[in-house]
């Protein structure tokens, strides 16, 4: 009987196609927007999460996110190091500046100067080269998307030269730095190198990063640092949470959620409406089945299977479409952070499935409870 139900659905090509397209559109819209939103959330904290070996972050109290951080005053490093509960601490200098590639291309870059002794502050993995290669002054490593922006269309090879202000820098390798929220290339170098590029300001660190002593109460240590220095101190998760709160307050995520809701409502409304029309048109045929002794449960199963068929095909098409578009977007260096996380793909399909199945179940129940004697009257 399930096969009969699916044949009935497949034969009504216009409605079947309309329903599949509605689900596909809805899934595509929701997944696309969810993927961008999830990627933005990931990028909001990407540079914080990349520094896996330093759980403690100290910064100016005005700082709200990684991208909008004011440098800390000189002398702060020692005051942080002297606090009880701090195992170690090192400076991290972040500068946004302009770089010029050897072909003359100008590009805004984010330079991260890490402590040259410990090299703490680098991404955990390098795709090409070694962390030691950026220890000498005048050298740096670039992220994959950054390389594509600085040298568009050119094959990857090292060493290469770029200029920042009037300083010449040698690119010696490629990090696995996560795509940043700004989309700019991320250059990692030693703090000595970064200081040479920091001519606009005389501060030597943007963040103090470090670790807690084993067993220390993290909240208490952070409070003690704040009390001693007047700076904000928090662990990595806390800094990430603060950055997300800041970006949330800017209103952009709200716009994404509105589009996602529109996708969900439109998709389910069109699917439910078309499915309702389909079921109404086939009520007599289902009633004939009831008269011939098909049980109510089986009638419900037949209608549910029709709904699930439409849903699964639509979800597959929608997810495929989103995967293609996000893959295409990710190949653009500036949009390299846009990905479709599997959780987003599954979550959006599950949300749409839940609402659609609820709507289909209501219709299936209505059909099962109909008066089968209508077959004698129609």
């Amino acid at each position, binding site marked *: 009987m399930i*096969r009969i139900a699916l044949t009935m659905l497949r*034969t009504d090509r216009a409605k079947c196609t309309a329903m599949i397209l509605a689900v596909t559109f809805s899934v595509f819209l929701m997944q696309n927007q969810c993927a961008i939103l999830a990627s933005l959330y990931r990028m909001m904290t990407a540079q914080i999460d990349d520094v896996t070996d330093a759980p403690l972050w100290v910064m100016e109290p005005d700082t709200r996110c990684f991208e909008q951080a004011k440098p800390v005053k000189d002398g702060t490093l020692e005051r942080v190091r002297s606090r009880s509960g701090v195992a170690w601490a090192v400076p991290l200098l972040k500068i946004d500046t302009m770089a010029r590639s050897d072909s003359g291309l100008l590009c805004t870059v984010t330079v991260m100067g890490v402590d040259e002794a410990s090299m703490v502050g680098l991404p955990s993995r390098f795709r090409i080269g070694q962390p030691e290669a950026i220890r000498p002054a005048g050298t740096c490593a670039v992220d994959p998307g950054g390389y594509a922006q600085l040298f568009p269309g050119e094959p990857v090879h090292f060493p290469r030269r770029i200029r920042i202000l009037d300083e010449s820098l040698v690119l010696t390798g490629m990090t696995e730095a996560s795509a940043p929220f700004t989309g700019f290339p991320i250059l990692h170098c030693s703090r000595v190198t970064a200081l040479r590029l920091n001519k606009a300001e005389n501060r030597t660190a943007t963040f103090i990063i470090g670790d807690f002593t084993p067993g220390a109460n993290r909240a208490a240590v952070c409070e003690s640092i704040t009390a001693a220095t007047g700076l904000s101190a928090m662990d990595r998760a806390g800094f990430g949470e603060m950055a997300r709160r800041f970006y949330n307050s800017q209103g952009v995520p709200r716009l994404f959620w509105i589009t996602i809701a529109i996708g969900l409502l439109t998709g389910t409304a069109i699917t439910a409406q078309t499915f309702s029309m389909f079921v109404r048109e086939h009520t007599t*045929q289902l009633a*004939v089945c009831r008269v011939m*002794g098909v*049980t109510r449960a089986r009638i419900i199963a037949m209608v549910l299977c029709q709904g699930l068929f439409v849903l699964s095909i639509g979800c597959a098409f929608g997810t495929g479409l989103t995967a293609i578009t996000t893959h295409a977007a990710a190949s653009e260096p500036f949009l390299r952070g846009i990905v479709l996380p599997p959780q987003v793909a599954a979550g959006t399909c599950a949300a749409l499935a839940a609402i659609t199945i609820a709507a289909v179940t209501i219709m299936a129940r209505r059909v099962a409870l109909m008066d*089968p004697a209508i077959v*004698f*009257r129609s």
Partner: protein
Amino acid sequence: MNPPAVHCHQIHRHFGNGDTRVHVLRGIDFTAASGQITFLAGPSGCGKTTLISVIAGLLQPSSGSVSLFGRDLASMPPDDAVRLRRKDIGFVFQQYHLIPALSVAENVAVPLLAASMKRRDALEQASAILDKLGLGDRLHQPPARLSGGQQQRVALARALVHQPRLVICDEPTAALDHETGHRVMELLAASAVHPDRAVLVVSHDNRIFHFADAIAHMDDGIITHIDHPNATTTA
């Protein structure tokens, strides 16, 4: 002695309440014997369709009792009633009600598939009966490609494929011309009449009344009289 195929005792059925209450069946006493074709005749709106819906267990009577082959429908659990309908009753509808998405053979196989028979076996059985009814060359065609008479023959095959003990036909010739209707009735009489089987035909087409062993005339919710058109001929 075998119990009658259908026995109705004082069947009342009304619809609605208060001022809108309509009394459709007003105390029907009716018996259809096995091995016979029994007609229910009467003008439109006299309650024929309501009565066969009650007999088929699709409608509950407001009062009275119906028994099929000696089994009281009212005392039967709902699942048993569905099972009885699936196994022991075949239906032929005025508008055929074939499923347009299915082929002729698949349409005929529906009662067997509803009884959970394997698809291949069901289609084999359906093909066999279609062959008997002269539609062996139309097995894989959609019903829409058939003429009205052929569609009614498919509906007849669907009603008979699971060898039910009772075949209920609702105006089986109403949508057919005289000649085609006559042929369909001949097929019905030849295929369905069997000592253990009964055929109940609702019709007001008096051109086919001579196929009946008994004709129960209905008017305004009651059976006014019963004719036995073949009784004098056989006597």
